[in-house]
Structure formats: structure tokens, C-alpha cells
């Protein structure tokens, strides 16, 4: 399994487009920009929703409808971030694959996405009024912490 994945990574980083991204002076920064722009929407909207459930921020709307309104942008952001991230990964696939910080980041990322699906499904029920249940506060607090961990693992990638 490990070998098969590593072979896949080697094939991926030698595809013409992956080589192009790695070697071009402008393509790599452009792809990084795509990744970060997507992340701004994805992480930005998730943080807004979590903070709203934690009772911080504007109270013009209950947390439920507020969260529902941001749903399309959260997922658009993830889509953009994944496109950018996949291209960045492809440019040096086997190095990323062997990098322990990247492995942790990837694992946390999968957990984080699944976690957000749960939060999103519960949000309308949790956020009907200002009386947000304790479980919602715990869940959103955990979500904030989880994404800070994902960013931390990402920042650590070049150090390993």
C-alpha cells in the first residue's frame, strides 16, 4: 500500500503539468494564491460560524440562519482550496508524502471536513434562538481548535 502510494506520488510529480508548476517562476505563486484564497473563504466562514455559536459577534440573526447563509461560500472555498492544494502537492508529491507534518495535516484535514459536515447539519437545530445548547458551544470551540491545529501542521511542513 505504502509503495503503491509512493509510486503514485512519483508518477504525479513527473506529469508535465506538475513539472511545469514546480519549474515555472510564476505558476507556483499563482497556485499558492489559489490555495490561500480558497482557505480564506473556507476557514474564514467556519471561524465566523463557530464564533457566532460561542456568543461572539453580531446578534442580528440567530446562529442557525447565520450559519446556513454561509454554507455555499464555505464549500466554494473548500473547492478552491482543494484545487490549489492538489496542484501544490503534485509539484513535490513524494516529498510531501514522506513529510510527517504533512501526514498529520492531511489526517486532521479529513477529520476537520467531516467534523464540519456534522456541525453544519446540526447548526439549524442548535441555533434556533440565542439559547445555544452547551453541546453546540463545545462542538464549535473544538472546531476552532481543530483548524488552528491544521494550520499549525501546515506551517511545520517546511521544518521537517
Amino acid at each position, binding site marked *: 500500500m505504502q509503495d503503491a502510494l509512493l509510486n503514485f506520488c512519483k508518477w504525479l510529480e513527473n506529469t508535465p503539468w506538475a513539472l511545469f508548476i514546480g519549474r515555472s*517562476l510564476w505558476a*507556483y*505563486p*499563482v497556485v*499558492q*494564491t489559489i490555495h*490561500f*484564497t480558497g*482557505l*480564506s*473563504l*473556507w*476557514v*474564514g*466562514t467556519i*471561524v*465566523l460560524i463557530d*464564533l457566532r455559536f460561542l456568543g461572539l*459577534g*453580531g446578534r*442580528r*440573526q440567530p446562529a442557525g*440562519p*447565520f450559519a*446556513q*447563509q*454561509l454554507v*455555499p*461560500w464555505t464549500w466554494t*472555498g473548500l473547492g478552491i482550496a482543494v484545487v490549489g492544494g492538489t496542484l501544490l502537492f503534485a509539484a513535490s508529491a513524494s516529498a510531501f508524502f514522506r513529510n510527517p507534518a504533512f501526514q498529520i495535516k492531511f489526517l486532521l484535514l479529513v477529520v476537520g471536513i467531516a467534523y464540519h459536515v456534522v456541525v453544519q447539519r446540526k447548526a439549524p437545530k442548535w441555533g434556533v434562538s440565542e439559547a445555544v445548547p452547551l453541546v453546540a458551544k463545545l462542538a464549535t470551540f473544538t472546531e476552532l481548535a481543530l*483548524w*488552528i491545529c491544521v*494550520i*499549525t501542521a*501546515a*506551517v*511545520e511542513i517546511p*521544518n521537517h
Partner: protein
Amino acid sequence: MNFFQWLEHSYVINTISNSKWMYPAVEVTHFFSLFLLVGTIAVIDLRLLGVAGRRQSVTELAEQLFPWTWIGLGLCVLSGFFMFAASATGFVANTQFLIKMVVTVVAVASGVLVQRSTRKWDRPSGTPMLAKLTAIVSLALWIGVILMAAEIANYSEL
């Protein structure tokens, strides 16, 4: 010794750059607050363009999100200053960094303009053309900031 050399070698900055956890913590703060800053601005801009969150009026959404924009900006500038200070001489000599700073100032100004104009632009019939243009310029400016930040590494050893 000029100011930037002094800054780079000052006690506080040395402690941060030589610490195993402090510099990464500063970077995490920078990215996290950047996402909050750009994320909230992007949602407001998309609302001005009429594509996001139409359940709420522009004014309501802006009033709910702008406090987070400025909190994000504050944290971003603070953490960014520490990142800058850790290699101050390298950053001031980097053209991409200087362009990034200029674009950031213009982008922040466009954010202030949007915040001050939301009431005026908030019409039941939809936002005026000027609001939509400002929103597109604002989005482009923030993408420009990120692009220049990504370009910094291309032209130096930072």
C-alpha cells in the same frame, strides 16, 4: 547599524526567531487572522455583488462581519510585524514585499470605503454599479496581496 539591523537583532525578536515554538505560533496567528480578514471581506464583497447571503441586507451582513474583519486585520498586522522583524533587512530589500505592503494599504482603504458606504449602497432593488465595481476591486486587491506574499519567497532567501 541601521534601524532594520537593530530590529532584527533586538532581544525580543531574537528570542522569537530562535524559539522552536514562538515563530511557528506567530505564523499560525498570521494565517489564521488572514483567513478571518480576507474571508469576511470576501463574503461582504460577494454580497455587494449580489451572489452571497441575500437573506440579510448588505447593512446587516456588513455590521455583523466587519468587526471580525478589523480584529483579523489587527492580529494580522501584529503577527506580520514579528515575522517582518525577524528578517527585517531581507524584507526591506525585497521588492515583492514592498509591493505587498502598498497593495495591502490600498486594500485596507477599500475595506474602509466599503464599510462607510454600505448604508448608501443598500437598496432593495440591488446594489448600485459603483458598489459592485468596488467589490470587484476589493476582491482583486486582496488576491493581489496574497499573490505578492507568495512571490516574496521567489526572489529571496527569506
